[in-house]
């Protein structure tokens, strides 16, 4: 049985709840065991990095050190922000020996050991590489026929660490949409910023970025946008009402997680993948509107 460590991060325990639910259901259906990292802490996101880099790296490194207590399993970080923070911390600890010495010393004060042997991975890449499109396709019992899907990657799983897919022309999400029986749409904004934290901080900028993405999805006549990140999901799903008020444009585009899409295609029920927790459900055969 395949086993991985699971780093949920703050969002999957809150607004990104449907992501956690569908991820756990889909992996369990695949017979893959996920063990949550014991007493994990915040990854630091981009906020801590903007205030203090030394502390931000130490914060992320504590999670990596705890993961090292296990039997060498890779860490799955579904939130793109967490994925990037943990990957970046690991990369910087390799690049800066002086910083590494300091962080290793600080972790040692709390009896934690860091060697850098844990790998950080995104579930999209794990599914498509370790399990593979061929195996996944065999498990698709309810192909999502005629569903037109916008593949939306967002930023952090593509850049700057190019481990998930080509940062300029990614294809892995399209491959997953196809194997689920749906149709991936050509979407030129698939790697563009969703607005990030600006949707709550500086809305004139943040909401405009989300608006560009939604407008393009609507004109492509998408049935649904599929995302890989809880912040992208929130920005695209939750600000549609606000955008209607400020721009007069009605989008009405549902947004779901790729794990929900895969789960449904593998025959999991609507409840098991948390479809009822979306603010707007996509029109999929067998899914109640």
């Amino acid at each position, binding site marked *: 049985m395949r086993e991985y460590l699971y780093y949920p991060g*703050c969002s999957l325990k*809150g*607004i*990104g*709840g449907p992501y956690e639910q569908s991820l756990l259901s889909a992996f369990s259906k695949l017979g893959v065991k996920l063990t949550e990292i014991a007493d*994990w*802490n*915040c990854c*630091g*996101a*981009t*906020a*801590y*990095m*903007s*205030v*203090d*880099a*030394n*502390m931000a790296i*130490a*914060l992320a490194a504590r999670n990596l050190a705890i993961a090292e207590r296990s039997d060498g399993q890779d860490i799955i970080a579904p939130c793109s922000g967490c994925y990037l923070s943990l*990957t970046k911390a690991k*990369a*910087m600890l*390799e690049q*800066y020996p002086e910083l590494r010495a*300091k962080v290793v010393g*600080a972790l040692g*004060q*709390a009896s*934690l050991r860091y060697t*850098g*042997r844990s790998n950080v*991975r995104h579930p999209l*890449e794990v599914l498509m590489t370790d399990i593979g499109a061929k195996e996944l396709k065999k498990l698709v019992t309810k192909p999502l026929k005629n569903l037109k899907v916008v593949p939306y990657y967002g*930023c*952090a799983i593509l*850049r*700057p*660490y*190019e*481990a998930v897919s080509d*940062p300029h022309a990614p294809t892995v999400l399209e491959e997953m949409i196809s194997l689920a029986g749906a149709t991936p749409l050509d979407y030129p904004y698939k790697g*563009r*910023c969703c*607005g*990030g*934290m*600006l949707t*709550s*901080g500086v*809305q004139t*900028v943040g909401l405009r*970025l989300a608006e560009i993405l939604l407008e393009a999805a609507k004109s492509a006549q998408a049935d649904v946008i599929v995302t890989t990140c809880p912040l992208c999901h929130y920005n695209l799903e*939750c600000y549609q*009402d*606000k955008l209607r008020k400020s721009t007069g444009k009605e989008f009405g585009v549902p947004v779901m997680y790729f794990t929900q899409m895969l789960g449904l295609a593998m025959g999991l029920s609507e409840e098991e993948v948390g479809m009822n*927790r979306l*603010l707007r459900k996509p029109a999929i055969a067998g899914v109640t509107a």
Partner: protein
Amino acid sequence: MDKTPRRIIGLIRAGFKDEVLSSISPWICTSCYSCTVECPAKIKITDIMFVVKRMAMQEKSYRRFVIPDIEEEFVRMVRKNGRLTESKMGIKVARKSGIGNLLSMVPLAWKLMRHDRLKLFHTERMVNIDELRTVLEAMETGPRVTLPAKPPVVPTGHHQEVTA
């Protein structure tokens, strides 16, 4: 954005430190790293923006507005609980960007609560917060390690090794 990224880089090269550190532009950067992977000269623009933000924060020369306030609040919350509580952070952010904004978020918050994605009186926290505090306090002793810009390298053991 009061200065374009190109202008920020130009000002840094020409030594206009005060102008750079008091600019709001680096705080508008969402760190999506588009510039970093596009730049033909491989300038690490996103990381430079991070450096500017940190210097401005440490020297207290940043202009007060909502984004640096959010970042500081984030750090405070993580140091206190080890994790972030989205609902509490959301309320603080909305309050900082005006009472009108706070009120405009109420219908969305209500919807998210009904969809079991937001709990108003719940605080997300670690069990052993003392362990994290020990680590962070140990990081605060001794000099800060400076991090000169280096090209990003995919860490070893990553599934696909790609050298930048």
